């Protein structure tokens, strides 16, 4: 007997219970702790914080555990949590020139004030599976040295002394916030940067890569890449001065790009900028390349029609939570629309059939 599709509620409950069981996996294997994820899967945690737009390693670790390691799902959990948080105010701009750098490299100068510091990088590892790691994770202690106590100046500042690179004008206006205002076009650079810093890493990487391969080509030198912690300060109205409320780890990338000049600008180097929560190097470099590509209009460059030049295309499609939600919604029932399409196709076929019969008869 035909029974209407009842029992959605029970099906959902059962699915959730099964999901929880699958998340835990084989119970004879020890359960993963949030602390283990935070300490040992730190780069995943960083990505979740960056794209989730919430700096909290513990919550990001919890989200990764709950999402069974699906990072976009974890980012989604963080975003949904983030919107429920009250806003107490805004911090002062962080001063990356005062960053305590774990890593700081420049591809444009062999040596420079502040030095080249490789830091904890995969760069020169040989990508050979380390089978020893499967058995035991003990590591020898790494060498240490005194931290550089002085500020580490930005490489682009050196170029600026000679006027070889465009000025980055000082601007104290409060930047727009796309988590509080709807994204509308045209988007100014501050808004684009906000969208890019929380954009999907894969999408940003693909866009950046396309500029390297000739779609709005603009050869980028990594003027500087730095990773480290900066203090976050906030002005407390009751106190009348700012106090340090914590520290965040950031990755900052400044690219130096060729520029032969245009009608409005003299020949000089131009800048692309990336700044992302956590140790998120690939993302920060990608962001800087895409930022630079999106600046074609203000620099008087030609619109090549390349995807990475198209702010509307990039910004409307860079958010993985929007993208994954809409993509996956096609799993939802569409019986009604499909029924309407069925009727239409049947009708059109019927008429096409009648026509061809009558044509054959003629």
């Amino acid at each position, binding site marked *: 007997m035909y029974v209407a599709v009842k029992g959605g509620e029970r099906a959902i409950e059962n699915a959730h219970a099964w999901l929880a069981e699958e998340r835990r996996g084989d119970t004879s294997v020890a359960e993963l702790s949030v602390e283990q994820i935070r300490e040992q899967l730190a780069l995943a945690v960083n990505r979740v914080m960056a794209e989730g737009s919430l700096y909290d390693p513990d919550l990001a670790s919890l989200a990764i555990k709950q999402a069974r390691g699906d990072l976009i799902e974890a980012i989604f959990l963080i975003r*949904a949590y983030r*919107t429920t948080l009250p806003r107490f105010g805004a911090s002062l701009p962080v001063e990356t020139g005062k960053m305590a750098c774990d890593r700081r490299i420049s591809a444009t100068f062999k040596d420079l004030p502040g030095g080249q510091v490789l830091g904890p990088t995969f760069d020169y590892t040989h990508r050979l599976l380390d089978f020893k790691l499967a058995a035991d994770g003990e590591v020898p202690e790494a060498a240490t040295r005194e931290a550089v106590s002085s500020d580490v100046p930005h490489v682009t500042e050196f170029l600026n002394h000679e006027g070889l690179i465009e000025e980055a004008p000082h601007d104290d206006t409060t930047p727009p916030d796309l988590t509080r205002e*709807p994204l509308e076009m045209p988007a100014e650079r501050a808004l684009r940067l906000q969208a890019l810093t929380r954009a999907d890493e894969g999408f940003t990487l693909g866009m950046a890569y396309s500029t390297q391969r000739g779609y709005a080509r603009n050869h980028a030198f990594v003027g500087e890449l730095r990773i480290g912690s900066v203090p976050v300060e906030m002005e407390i109205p009751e106190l009348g001065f700012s106090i340090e409320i914590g520290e965040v780890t950031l990755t900052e990338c400044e690219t130096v790009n060729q520029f032969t000049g245009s009608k409005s600008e003299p020949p000089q180097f131009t800048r692309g900028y990336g700044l992302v929560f956590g140790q998120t190097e690939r993302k920060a470099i990608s962001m800087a390349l895409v930022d630079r590509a999106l600046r074609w209009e203000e620099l008087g460059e030609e619109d090549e029609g390349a995807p990475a030049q198209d702010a*509307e295309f990039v910004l409307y499609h860079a958010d993985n939570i929007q993208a994954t939600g809409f993509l996956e919604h096609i799993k939802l029932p569409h019986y009604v*629309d499909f*029924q*309407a399409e069925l009727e239409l196709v049947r009708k059109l076929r019927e008429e096409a059939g009648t026509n061809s019969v009558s044509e054959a008869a003629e």
Partner: protein
Amino acid sequence: MSEYNFAYLDEQTKRMIRRAILKGLAIPGYQVPFASREMPMPYGWGTGGVQVSAAVMTPDDRFKVIDQGADDTTNAVSIRTFFERTAGVATTTTTSDATVIQTRHRIPEEPLSEGQILVYQVPIPEPLRFLEPRESETRKMHSLEEYGLMHVKLYEDISRHGHIATSYDYPVKVEGRYVMDPSPIPKFDNPKLGNVAAIQLFGAGREQRIYALPPYTQVVSLDFEDHPFEASKPDHPCVMCGAENSYLDEVITDDTGGRMFVCSDTDFCEARQAAGHIGTMNGKDAA
């Protein structure tokens, strides 16, 4: 879930959404940008509708959710449970008992009355989107009332197929001004959009747009004099309740082409059965 505000969203956010709704009601059919929030369900799964429902909901409301016309489809169940947990409002499956009805892809068969609010979940609010992908362009087209492209598209359909080949998400014109996307309802439902006693609100979360139809608004489906709009449905009665004029789902009953048709509006169908209307297959073995 006592740690969350009534109906999940904080009051400032609800205020912002209500302002967008009021603006939408003041300019029927106009898409009002609003700062859509991330919700605990995915974009594309009704976040716009959920935000609108949360903004208009009061503790005294009776809430109904349908998806494809049915109260028991999984996502309708999920959204109803969400508001039961976060707002503690009474829920119902009876159309006439509900004060707020959130819907995806259907308008209830039973006419709505004054005091009711119908909230649509909208995936793509822009009726011109698939003719012009750029938001900056489509907003310009709306402000200049430049809808020629849409008519050309419909005309091309007719010249190619003999019909307008749009069976759902069929564009309408509101009060002779804005061309509006009615959300992906079947065109069968289009005549139910206009001159309605209830308030109709449309929420698109991912696309950050809200639009509205105040009660008794004129809504006309786009067409041509010689090719008038026609609301179509499968040409069968419902096998459960025998209804001749309701929208039907086609249900495959075996693997040899057997199929039957039942009302997509489950509340409408059940009410008719309870009133003694019995279709041809009711109580019989479908196979």
